[in-house]
């Protein structure tokens, strides 16, 4: 493999890792606050649809993004209603949200566009343009580093950079602010937070809403950045891979970046090479597809260090009277 090919694979790694990363950080906020969310997939999907649909209708990718964020946050609030207010089963609520999004998107798409559950292809202002970082052109001829900067770092849509910036931001919010401390506390020992006179419900709703916003970004990027329009089931299990990455990262932001880049790389390689030939031994593409899931099971099995989730995860908080 020559250097140019390597850069291409890494370039698509970054693109493919971005939705995973945004969804993974979304799950991070929610689960750190004690609300398990397996509805990441559904929220991404609905955001992908509404972003693409509104962008197609108005020609503005920004309005599309707004619609995507709103739709995703609404689903988040449904999840909050079920799991925080009515103390329902968070897993079941997440499953319901995934199906709700899978059904509604196709239903509405068929009604609005009549193209069998997809939106028209986005053109021009309906898609995120690629941003060329400063000096990318001038630095391109520099050996090794030039192409690295011009091909790999430069030339992505704005949401890729937003996703990357979210990593330090998430770290800062969670570990360097009062809000973050309380948010983490509410996922470990909600009774302590309650005793301190801080609203458990309020904090958990805040976390769930942030989760919705980040999922909205992820879905929006999928339909208006990575691809040009919505197709049915376009998230294709990315919400679950993000969940896997979250466990892989043991609920830490920087590790989440690493995990998502790894899973993005796996997707990029699977996309580029159908079957990988290793001198007589052929790795089928299906194995590459399944690898993120297999890795997650191995991690969960505790063979590579133990992944300990937030202690109060999945438990609705019942105030003592």
């Amino acid at each position, binding site marked *: 493999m020559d250097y140019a090919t390597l850069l291409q694979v890494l370039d698509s790694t970054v693109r493919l890792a971005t939705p995973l990363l945004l969804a993974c950080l979304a799950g991070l906020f929610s689960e750190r606050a004690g609300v398990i969310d397996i509805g990441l997939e559904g929220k991404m999907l609905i955001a992908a649809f509404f972003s693409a649909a509104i962008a197609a209708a108005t020609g503005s990718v920004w309005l599309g993004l707004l619609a995507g964020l709103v739709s995703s946050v609404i689903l988040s609030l449904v999840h909050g209603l079920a799991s925080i207010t009515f103390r329902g089963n968070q897993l079941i609520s997440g499953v*319901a949200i995934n199906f709700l999004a899978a*059904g509604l998107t196709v*239903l509405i798409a068929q009604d609005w566009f009549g193209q069998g559950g997809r939106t028209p292809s986005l053109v021009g202002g309906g898609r995120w343009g690629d941003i060329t970082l400063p000096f990318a052109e001038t630095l391109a001829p520099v050996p090794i580093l030039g192409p690295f900067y011009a091909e790999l770092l430069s030339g992505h849509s704005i949401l890729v950079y937003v996703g990357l910036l979210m990593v330090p931001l998430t770290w800062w919010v969670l570990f360097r602010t009062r809000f973050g401390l309380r948010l983490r506390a509410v996922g470990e020992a909600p009774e302590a937070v309650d005793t301190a006179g801080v609203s458990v419900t309020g904090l958990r709703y805040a976390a769930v809403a942030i989760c919705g916003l980040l999922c909205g970004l992820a879905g929006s990027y999928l339909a208006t950045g990575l691809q040009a329009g919505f197709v049915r089931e376009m998230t294709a299990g990315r919400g679950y891979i993000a969940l896997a990455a979250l466990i892989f990262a043991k609920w830490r932001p920087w590790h989440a970046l690493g995990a998502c880049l790894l899973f993005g790389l796996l997707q990029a390689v699977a996309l580029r090479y159908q079957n990988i030939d290793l001198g007589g031994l052929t790795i089928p593409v299906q*194995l590459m*597809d*399944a690898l993120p899931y297999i890795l997650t*099971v191995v991690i*969960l099995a*505790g063979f590579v260090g133990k992944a300990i989730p937030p202690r109060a995860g999945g438990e609705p908080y019942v105030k003592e009277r």
Partner: protein
Amino acid sequence: MDKLPPWADAVLVPLISLLLAAALSALVILGIGENPVEAFRLMVEGALLRSAGWGYTLYYATNFIFTGLAVAVAFHARLFNIGGEGQAMIGGLGVAVICLYLPWPHWTLALVAASASAAVFGAAWAFIPAYLQARRGSHIVITTIMFNFIAAALLNYLLVNVMKPPGQQDPATAVFPASTHLPTFQDMFATEAMPLFRGSPGNVTFFLAIAACVLVWLLIWRTRLGYEIRALGHSESAARYAGISPVRTIVVAMLISGGLAGLMGVNTAMGEAERLTMNATEGAGFIGIAVALMGRNHPMGVFLAAILFGFLYQGGAELALWTNIPRELIVVIQALVILFTGALDNMVRAPLARLFAARRRAT
């Protein structure tokens, strides 16, 4: 919180949840500019007013009985088996292996062997998540989700690279030999004078599903193992104190659950397609969740809920055929049923409980 009388818990709560889901679905249908009453009429007509419609309804219901029972058995041990989809796929593989590679003189023998094989394959697919949950505390929801994806990749690989006959385009096995074809309702009940169930896929597996309902009822409420499963589901510490091994019970409950999900493969691969195809499960593993929630984890409830979803599935196909409403409407209804009967249970239950408490005080 105030307790509900048992009949209200078993009948009223699911019924209200269902009505809420139906009302919201009607709003969705209105929202996309169709008439919900007309849609319902079409669904009833297509699914229940013709014998062929019943043939389809019961075919789908057979799938949902198996996956619903699978979820219900796991729920009794307070395990959420979301991997019915993968277990059913692998169960189908078990059916294909039996039907393709062994000679069978008669379909009855083939049915027995294929059912056993489907159950074993499905159970095997549930074993690793079960073992990891029991021994190492790995969350079974996450592992079974992962195993769904791994099952799809494995099946895809086997169908494309190993089991597909040469020269064939679509990823599927060869057609099973004629001696393994199961009798459909048409074969069983249609006569010259009364051509019933024409062309519909409902088949003898339906009766296997009814038998499974009875067996699961016996298992859960009439055996020591069932008692252990329920005890573990109520309180792990109490179960352990009573000398019940949580590890063993978790693994056994999940093996039974996976086996039941695997049995669905008999219906899809042997009863309908008569070969193993890539997307035979069609999300039935997930509908099992809605069915089990709606049926309150009781075999009778699962049976009724499965018939209801069979009707919705067949009715939805009719809608897609005659109107502008795509089949995904069923996915929305399914989501709403899961939401109301599963996650928002307290929202329905709490006002009811207050109502009953007020009535009790009044008398």
